[in-house]
């Protein structure tokens, strides 16, 4: 019961500032850009091959990769700003058991990341579906395919939120935490592939596409486990540091 109160408190922290609405705004913008791309965009040869088949359309709608990145930024900002604004002090005073408090924080950001990602996936799917009305192509993705795209987004969004929360607790500075998230999820994967080509299947974007059904390797269970591992490592690091370091 007490732990549920902590999660509720953390959720209230998230919903009583403008940050979630800023992220929602970005998602709406992404959906609008995707819709515009469907209507007016073409391949290099001037054709609309990128929306010609069900697989192409699913690939276009697969929001899971973006969801993980966006939710990670959301989580990093949400937790790091707690330290920046000092609001972590009243939190730890009301709830001095740091392990359960940090866990509640991670769970709240994880839930928020999942919710934002579901909204993002639905908006993207809706945007593509509407935009296709203005082309010669119909909506070719099955209901099962759409559901999978949305579920994949919720999973990677949840993992991304937890990943960001862990980085935020570790770095404790909004600018630094955002930089590390971008570095780990966006900049370092291509470099890693250059060094170890076999790692291509295990970087976040590949895993997200696999869960969405765009890629077949690695399999869905392995991809979900790998995404969870990507999230778990920073969460454990953040938790360990929070337990050992002075709060202020």
């Amino acid at each position, binding site marked *: 019961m*007490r732990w549920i*109160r*902590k999660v*509720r*408190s953390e959720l*209230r*922290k998230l919903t*009583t*500032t*403008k940050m979630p609405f800023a992220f929602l705004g970005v998602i709406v913008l992404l959906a609008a850009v995707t819709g515009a791309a469907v209507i007016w965009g073409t391949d290099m040869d001037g054709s609309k091959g990128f929306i010609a088949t069900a697989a192409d359309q699913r690939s276009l709608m697969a929001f899971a990769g973006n969801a993980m990145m966006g939710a990670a930024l959301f989580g990093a900002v949400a937790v790091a*700003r707690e330290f920046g*604004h*000092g*609001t972590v*002090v*009243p*939190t*730890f*005073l*009301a*709830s*001095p*058991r740091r392990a359960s408090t940090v866990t509640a924080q991670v769970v709240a950001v994880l839930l928020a990341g999942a919710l934002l990602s579901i909204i993002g996936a639905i908006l993207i799917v809706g945007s593509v579906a509407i935009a296709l009305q203005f082309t010669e192509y119909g909506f070719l993705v099955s209901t099962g395919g759409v559901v999978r795209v949305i579920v994949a987004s919720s999973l990677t969004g949840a993992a991304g939120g937890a990943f960001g929360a862990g980085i935020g607790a570790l770095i404790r500075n909004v600018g630094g935490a955002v930089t590390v998230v971008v570095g780990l999820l966006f900049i370092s994967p291509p470099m890693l592939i250059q060094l170890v080509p076999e790692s291509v299947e295990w970087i976040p974007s590949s895993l997200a596409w696999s869960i969405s059904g765009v890629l077949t390797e690695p399999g869905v269970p392995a991809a979900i486990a790998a995404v969870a591992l990507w999230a778990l490592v920073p969460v454990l690091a953040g938790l360990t540091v929070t337990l050992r370091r*002075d*709060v*202020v």
Partner: protein
Amino acid sequence: MLPLVVNQLGKSYGSHQVVRDLTFTASPGRVTGFLGPNGAGKSTTMKILLDLAAADHGTARIGDRRYRDLPDPARTVGVVLEPDAFHPGRSGRNHLRVLADISGFSLQRIDEVLELVGLTDAAHRRVGAYSLGMRQRLCLAAALLGDPPVLVLDEPGNGLDPQGIHDLRAVLRDRAAQGHTIFVSSHLLAEVELLADDLVVVDKGRLVTSGALDDLKQAAVMVRSPRAEDLAVRLVAAGGAVETGDAPETLTVRGLTTDLIGDLAHNAGIALHELASGAGSLEEMFLRWTGDEAQATSRRSRLIPTAVTTRKEVVS
């Protein structure tokens, strides 16, 4: 009835020792003023007491428990610590709701504390638009949410207007009268003098003095004599610690009673123009306590006779 018990507390940041073997107790039913110059280790001591920082050695307990072991911290200890620990975009009421959610306080209780600190009308506004005094009132509201029997307050009067300070003093005195433990750090010495029953004074991380404010004030005797220098020599020989004041004929004597000083002067044929117990204002005492370390050491052992010193030396 929960005293705050600090025992042999020590804390360093790198090679800088911030708190050194600090031992004191803040008792229930009393307002204890926690004084010291900037960097004396007051805030660090409070953070250790509240489990926001770890001690290198020693203990700091509320009753017989560490803060983290309290069964319901928010209903046991109210804290004002960081004056800017708010998200600037969150409203005052929502700030309290976040805290109320954790500890299970009702919305009615939030309204009560907002009313108590005079923030009801501003509760819906975002904290970023609050003045320093309003933020301080919000800190106090958060501290009082759980109606706790212990208050730990770091500079609670910061930014408050005279009415706010008056109201704060009334609240704290009332709570102390109910048997609550009030532990207040402040630089407003005149305010502490009006508010505190007991004092704990630290300097450079060490305890300089502690005890009841009235006792500390009576621990010195003011003497005015046209032959102050002659008298000072005799007083030191008799075991007193003597400081000369700004006026050359004025002495502050520790370790000797007014009776003894009067007799001694009479026997030596030295006229006294004034003889009164009292160490001066709290500000004067504070400046003597927190002078340079050598002086502080001599003052700590005030019953041990030392050389005659001038207050100007102490202040500088």
